[in-house]
């Protein structure tokens, strides 16, 4: 699957842009703050009905304007798809597939699979365990509605159980019958979620390892491990054991809401011991593994967005990544960089179909391709 054309009006700093893309490699080149990331975000938006960076839609409208429009012409499983998104201040956002408006945005998500690799992903390593649970959950639930539903229900039951614990404490009472119903729900849902996360990590882990080894030339030993109290023993028993503590804390201290991913470099936590380039390599390998996973459960080949991929990584690693993603296990790719140097070196060696776009302050011009012929001026402002 790939996006053939993108048209943008008033999205962030992009006033009006119309672009035609290569089905393989596309590069946005330009100085800091000109709108390269915003272009990727526009493409991301058309897949997920929201910005990767800012969930407040009114802030994604270009300053002083009233609306934004994003439109993409896609080729998906050999069919043309036209996706339209329009958002006007104070109104509900409109999402249309081939001119037909969606009733629910959730019907669209999953149609155009996509993976974004961005510098802000470092929160996966540096942030709290909630970031890593969010990562697992968003990847799994992209193609597993049932999982998402179970997760929502688990969180609801957890909220109710915690409220009940607070009620017990405030009124100095204890009603085991009442607690039991919430425990039963937590156990039933928690065990399913745990199992699904285990399966997911089981699939992800070897692919992640393969990619990390490839990018780093096998120089470093890294591990990725799913940690859950539920892996240690039966959930129901642990809930019972923790009851006295939970009543004091007025909070449920065991369950899949405590799950985490352990990310290690050798025997040490990546967070503490990893260099910036190693952390970045770790994230890229993790996201590429996510890409493989999403591809395996989707009919359509996902799009890959690589924002600032050259930052922090040495030339060897970058070239390995670009080579990897240019191969035929990946589809359409978008890369951003502040200058052409890296790309001019790498692209000829990779030999894939490409287009290069120069971004200057919210406007974009095509700056080279290997389709033969003159680079076409797509936008002049």
């Amino acid at each position, binding site marked *: 699957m790939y996006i053939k054309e993108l048209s943008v009006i008033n999205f962030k700093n992009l006033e009006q842009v119309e672009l035609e893309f290569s089905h393989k490699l596309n590069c946005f080149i330009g100085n800091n703050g000109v709108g390269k990331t915003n272009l990727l975000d526009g493409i991301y938006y058309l897949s997920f009905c929201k910005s990767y960076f800012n969930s407040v839609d009114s802030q994604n409208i270009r300053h002083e304007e009233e609306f934004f429009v994003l439109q993409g012409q896609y080729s998906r499983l050999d069919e043309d798809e036209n996706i339209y998104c329009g958002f006007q201040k104070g109104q509900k956002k409109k999402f249309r597939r081939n001119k037909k408006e969606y009733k629910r945005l959730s019907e669209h998500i999953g149609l155009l699979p996509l993976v974004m690799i961005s510098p802000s992903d470092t929160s996966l390593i540096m942030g709290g365990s909630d970031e890593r649970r969010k990562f697992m959950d968003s990847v799994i639930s992209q193609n597993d509605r049932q999982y998402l539903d179970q997760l929502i229900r688990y969180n609801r039951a957890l909220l*109710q159980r915690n409220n009940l614990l607070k*009620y017990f404490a405030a009124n100095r009472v204890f*009603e085991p*019958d009442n607690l039991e119903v919430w425990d*039963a*729900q937590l156990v039933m849902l928690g065990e399913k979620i745990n199992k699904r996360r285990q399966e997911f990590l089981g699939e992800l882990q070897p692919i992640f390892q393969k990619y990390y080894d490839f990018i780093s030339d096998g120089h470093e030993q890294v591990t990725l491990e799913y940690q859950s109290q539920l892996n240690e023993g039966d959930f129901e028993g642990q809930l019972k054991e923790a009851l006295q503590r939970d009543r004091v804390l007025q909070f449920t201290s065991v369950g899949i809401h405590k799950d985490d991913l352990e990310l290690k470099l050798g025997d040490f936590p990546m967070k503490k011991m990893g260099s910036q380039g190693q952390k970045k390599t770790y994230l890229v390998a993790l996201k590429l593994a996510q890409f493989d996973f999403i591809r395996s459960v989707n009919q359509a080949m996902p799009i890959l967005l690589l924002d600032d991929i050259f930052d922090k990584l040495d030339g060897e690693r970058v070239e390995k990544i670009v080579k990897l993603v240019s191969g035929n296990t990946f589809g359409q790719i978008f890369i951003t960089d502040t200058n052409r140097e890296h790309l001019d070196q790498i692209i000829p060696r990779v030999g894939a179909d490409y287009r290069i776009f120069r971004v200057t302050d919210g406007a974009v011009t095509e700056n080279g391709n290997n389709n033969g012929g003159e680079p076409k001026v797509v936008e002049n402002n």
Partner: protein
Amino acid sequence: MTQDTFPSKLLENAVTEFAKLPGIGKKTALRLVLHLLKQDKEDVHRFSNSITRLRDEIRHCKVCRNISDTEVCNICSNESRDHGTICVVENIRDVMSIENTQQYHGVFHVLGGIISPMDGIGPADLEIDSLIKRVGEGDVKEIILALSTTMEGDSTNFYIFKKLKESGVKVSMLARGVSIGDELEYIDEVTLGRSIINRQLFEQSLGQ
């Protein structure tokens, strides 16, 4: 609108009372009150009487807790209905929705809510004990749980199921044709009617 802009204390009182109703703001309240002022006295008396009498004289059926004018509601006192089958619902609106399907010929039990600790509602606040008692006393063959498919509805189902386990009564629940998270009230009649006919044993629904 500030309070002192009212030219009459009587007007202000009436507006304040109307504005207490759900979904009614001060502006709408004023419009309704001015409308009433334009009507004949008899009409307005009939209106206010109907509300006073509603509040004073309404009763809850002593069998099923449905709203009723009499001690026992007309569903419970209807001989031709199947008194061995009790459909457990959250509120009176659910009774009305199910009655509208015309697919159900048993009787009801109105809980008056569902268990939700965050709203301060526990089993003791609901008509669960009276249900258990009812099952213990009569010739009840089947209990159909028809609560909303929310987490709270499920938990209430589970609580009731546990309480009824010993009695040996058959416990079933609406077929999950109804999508998860739906409130009974908003499901169309055809779907609701179908999910009553295709109900399943509660035990089988566990672990789904």
